[in-house]
């Protein structure tokens, strides 16, 4: 086996240097969780053996009361002393209380008082929540959002490994030895965690979060409750979580009753040790390898149904065959699935809560649901359950699980809309009607929609926004035209973008329903282009036309990708695409990885599979192989591909194909009066050259020279197409000064032949074919930092700086890339 394949750093996309930091925090989680698992095991065993499962309802009621005191106290201490001192205090408490429990339990021996057993159980329950909050609050200070998301599973795995160790230790306890030693061990693990904490503080710096900007108008809890009440989705999540947790408490009660029958505390401890070991091994596998795949395969809203179904099945089992097997399944459902799947998935479900009050509503749900579900189940078990048999209790549990499932089905239906509303709300929509402008009473007829979409009067973003505003004013009457335009190739990419944006405002549900299939069609058209690329490459031609076509087919998928991302943003399936596009082109692997993951979640499986080669930066050969695997690549000969390219809607592709056909000797069907200036100019130069009346370069050859020059890599073929008519070749006389140092830098020179001398101070460089002088002008720099002098036999391709700037303005994606390079200089 290739060891690189099992290298954890590679498996979890860790950058160099990150492994050590992740190991330290995973180690902290390991030590904290190992101690906690020992304490929980000891508390459960003592309580069940000495007090009995019948008294568990008291715990279910007391635990939330205890947490209602602990959580505000924890927050107040954090505010007063900061996380570091609070962490120190808690570690000190764990060490001293662990030793204290060990001493007191050893003193009482085989018959500890009932109150002590209650204290042990509640103490473990307190830290079950308390240490989780403490650990993740602390981790938050050291990692930004992107890192936290990547490392979450690894930290979880560290904690799960600690719990597995604790489970193993518990299974090794000698028969009838008592569980007091587990508290001493907890103290030892807490002390080790404290040492690790000190080491982390010395080794790693905190990630300081700047204060948030903006004056808050929040009215705290009142506004949050009102916002939650108005959101059906938020209410469904809150009620569903309450019901699932109540089911969990009922399940826990029944499983504990079965486990505790006839076992003493040491035997119980060994049993819980084995169960803890198994559950945490399962949780680790789910966290590391399964959870993300599950979410990606079935979606967050479907994964939300798993827990209610699991509890339902356990209760059915408990009704039919109550015994160790059913109880074990209940234990795994409550302490395994719920931790590793349901709670993690809940974090994703919270993304659909109303964006303006998300944090407050989340706090209310988490702070209220868990304690109130536990207390409600406790009260029920205390007052009603004593009159019921175990199977009747399981029937009641089944009913609660079914109710939870029904509520989550409702949440499932609302999830997409809720997420879309949130994603759309963070997208700055500059086409919206300004809030301070009054509504215009003038009626606009729907007939105007098609002419607006077909017109190409104003291609700027401001023009697009104006068109969109007018169409939205038309109202519902515009919708059929917009649906048709969004799907039709008769309309330009820009027109379809306007149609999608307007449709998103007028009928979002319809857009959401159709956007996936529309974008799949767009992606499939890119595969048709890929078919041409493959065929032309098979022809092995080396002329300028084929060279430019190669660039066209290299760039085209990127354009399609951007159109798809824009549409998904409009439909509320992606965060603002403008940032994602920049992140995809970013040199930082973390940003790129985050963008790729966001697209994978938003695009859906089918569309994502089509986009995979372009997102992954596959070579042309790999793209073709991917397309052929799914039967997407049309087979054609090189000549057929060139003929198809010559009919392209992209003038540069058509012109390049015409030149390639001309060079290959296929001159029939080439029209000298083609309406596209770039095609016409190319053909006329080729005809004159053949007749020996001209030696000028064709526009395609000029573009080919730019394509061959790395300085022009940021320009895609549409931008080169825009620049093509502005390019010209010149042959300055030897010794002519093209630019003085410190003087205006108005032109960029690409050397086609001869030499060009660059003089900066006493240094002199001679540029030859393929080199660029005045390259800084591409990034907007308007003062020359060198003197440029024509050498012998110089022939240059001239690119005007102001044309480059105009091109950057016409294509903001190019402008942003040039600006990125400019600020990085």
């Amino acid at each position, binding site marked *: 086996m290739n060891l690189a394949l099992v290298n954890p750093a590679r498996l979890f996309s860790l950058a160099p240097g990150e492994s050590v930091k992740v190991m330290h925090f995973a180690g902290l989680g390991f030590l904290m969780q190992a101690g906690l698992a020992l304490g929980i095991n000891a508390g459960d065993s003592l309580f069940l053996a000495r007090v009995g499962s019948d008294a568990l309802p008291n715990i279910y009621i007391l635990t939330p009361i205890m947490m209602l005191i602990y959580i505000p106290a924890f927050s107040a201490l954090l505010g007063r002393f900061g996380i570091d001192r609070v962490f120190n205090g808690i570690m000190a408490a764990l060490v001293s209380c662990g030793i204290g429990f060990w001493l007191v339990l050893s003193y009482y021996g085989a018959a500890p008082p009932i109150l002590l057993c209650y204290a042990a159980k509640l103490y473990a329950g307190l830290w079950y929540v308390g240490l989780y909050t403490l650990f993740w609050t602390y981790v938050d200070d050291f990692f930004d959002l992107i890192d936290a998301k990547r490392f979450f599973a690894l930290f979880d795995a560290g904690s799960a490994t600690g719990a597995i160790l604790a489970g193993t230790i518990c299974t090794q306890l000698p028969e009838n030895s008592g569980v007091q030693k587990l508290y001493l061990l907890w103290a030892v693990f807490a002390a080790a965690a404290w040492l690790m904490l000190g080491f982390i503080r010395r080794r790693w*710096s*905190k*990630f*300081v*979060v*700047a204060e948030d*900007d*903006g*004056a*808050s*108008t*929040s009215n705290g809890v009142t506004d949050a409750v009102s916002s939650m009440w108005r959101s059906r989705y938020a209410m469904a999540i809150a009620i569903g979580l309450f019901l699932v947790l109540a089911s969990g408490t009922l399940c826990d009660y029944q499983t504990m009753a079965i486990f505790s029958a006839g076992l003493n505390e040491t035997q119980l401890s060994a049993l819980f040790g084995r169960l803890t070991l198994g559950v945490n091994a399962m949780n680790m596998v789910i966290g590391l390898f399964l959870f993300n795949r599950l979410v990606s395969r079935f979606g967050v809203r479907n994964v939300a149904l798993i827990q209610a179904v699991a509890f339902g099945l356990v209760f059915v089992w408990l009704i039919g065959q109550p015994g160790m097997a059913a109880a074990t399944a209940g234990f795994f459902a409550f302490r395994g699935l719920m931790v590793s799947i349901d709670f993690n998935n809940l974090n994703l479900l919270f993304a659909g809560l109303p964006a*303006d009050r998300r944090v407050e509503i989340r706090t209310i749900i988490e702070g209220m649901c868990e304690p109130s579900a536990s207390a409600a189940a406790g009260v029920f078990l205390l007052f009603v359950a004593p009159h019921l048999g175990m199977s009747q209790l399981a029937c009641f549990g089944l009913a609660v699980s079914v109710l939870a499932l029904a509520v989550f089905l409702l949440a499932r239906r609302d999830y997409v809309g809720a997420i879309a509303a949130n994603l759309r709300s*963070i*997208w*700055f929509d*500059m086409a*919206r009607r*300004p*809030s*301070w402008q009054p509504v215009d009473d003038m009626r606009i007829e729907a007939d105007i929609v098609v002419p607006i979409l077909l017109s190409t009067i104003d291609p*700027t*973003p*401001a023009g697009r*926004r104006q068109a969109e505003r007018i169409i939205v004013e038309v109202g519902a009457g515009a919708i059929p035209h917009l649906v048709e335009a969004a799907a039709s190739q008769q309309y330009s990419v820009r027109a379809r973008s306007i149609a999608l944006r307007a449709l998103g405002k007028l009928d979002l549900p319809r857009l959401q329903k159709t956007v996936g299939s529309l974008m799949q069609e767009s992606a499939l058209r890119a595969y048709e282009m890929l078919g041409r690329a493959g065929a032309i490459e098979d022809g092995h031609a080396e002329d300028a036309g084929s060279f430019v076509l190669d660039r066209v087919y290299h760039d085209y998928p990127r354009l399609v990708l951007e159109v798809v991302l824009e549409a998904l943003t409009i439909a509320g399936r992606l*965060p*603002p695409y*403008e*940032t994602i*596009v*920049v992140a995809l082109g*970013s040199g*930082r692997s973390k*940003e790129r990885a985050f963008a790729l993951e966001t697209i994978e979640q938003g695009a859906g499986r089918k569309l994502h599979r089509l986009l995979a080669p372009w997102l992954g930066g596959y070579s042309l050969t790999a793209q073709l192989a991917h397309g052929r695997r799914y039967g997407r690549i049309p087979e054609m000969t090189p000549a057929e591909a060139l003929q198809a390219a010559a009919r392209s809607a992209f003038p540069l592709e058509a012109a390049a194909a015409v030149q390639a056909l001309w060079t290959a000797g296929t001159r029939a069907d080439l029209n000298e009066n083609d309406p596209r200036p770039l095609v016409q100019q190319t053909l006329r130069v080729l005809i004159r050259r053949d007749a020996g009346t001209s030696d000028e370069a064709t526009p395609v050859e000029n573009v080919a020279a730019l394509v061959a020059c790395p300085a022009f890599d940021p320009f895609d073929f549409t931008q080169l197409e825009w620049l093509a008519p502005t390019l010209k070749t010149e042959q300055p006389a030897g010794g002519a000064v093209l630019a003085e140092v410190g003087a205006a830098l108005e032109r960029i020179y690409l050397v086609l032949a001869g030499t060009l001398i660059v003089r900066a101070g006493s240094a002199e460089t001679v540029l030859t074919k393929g080199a660029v002088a005045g390259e800084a002008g591409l*990034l*907007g*720099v*308007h003062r020359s930092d060198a003197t440029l002098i024509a050498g012998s036999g110089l022939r240059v391709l001239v690119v005007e700086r102001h044309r480059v*700037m*105009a091109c*950057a*303005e*016409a*294509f*903001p*994606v190019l*402008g*942003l890339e*040039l*600006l*990125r390079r*400019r*600020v*990085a200089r």
Partner: protein
Amino acid sequence: MTAPLSSSEREQRVAALRAIAPFDRLADLELALLVEVAAHRRYAPGAVVHHGEGGAPKLIMTIAGATRAASGSNHPVAGLPSMFDPYAVERLVADDTVGAETLSLDRQTFFTVARECPALIRGFLEGEGI
């Protein structure tokens, strides 16, 4: 959530932003929409406007008073490099005597504005605000 602006606040901020290159290249409606979405804050003399390392990347426009970056720059537009590299953030403090009033954009909004108002990008490229 920020409170809706009164018309006089909006006009005042638009006028202040219009006085800063390259925002002077934007249309009035674009500026008005921008000040609606930009976060607005006032800082006392010497107060920290941005923590620098570890802080969230922001494009910060000083519309009144003055700010000073760790590099010594007192340009009214700060944080452009952090739009492209979220780790390239610089500590920024308000002027020691007059303090500062700022508008700021997060990265997502910046890139949307850049796409919607390409004149701004051209302005930056031509050296305004860099």
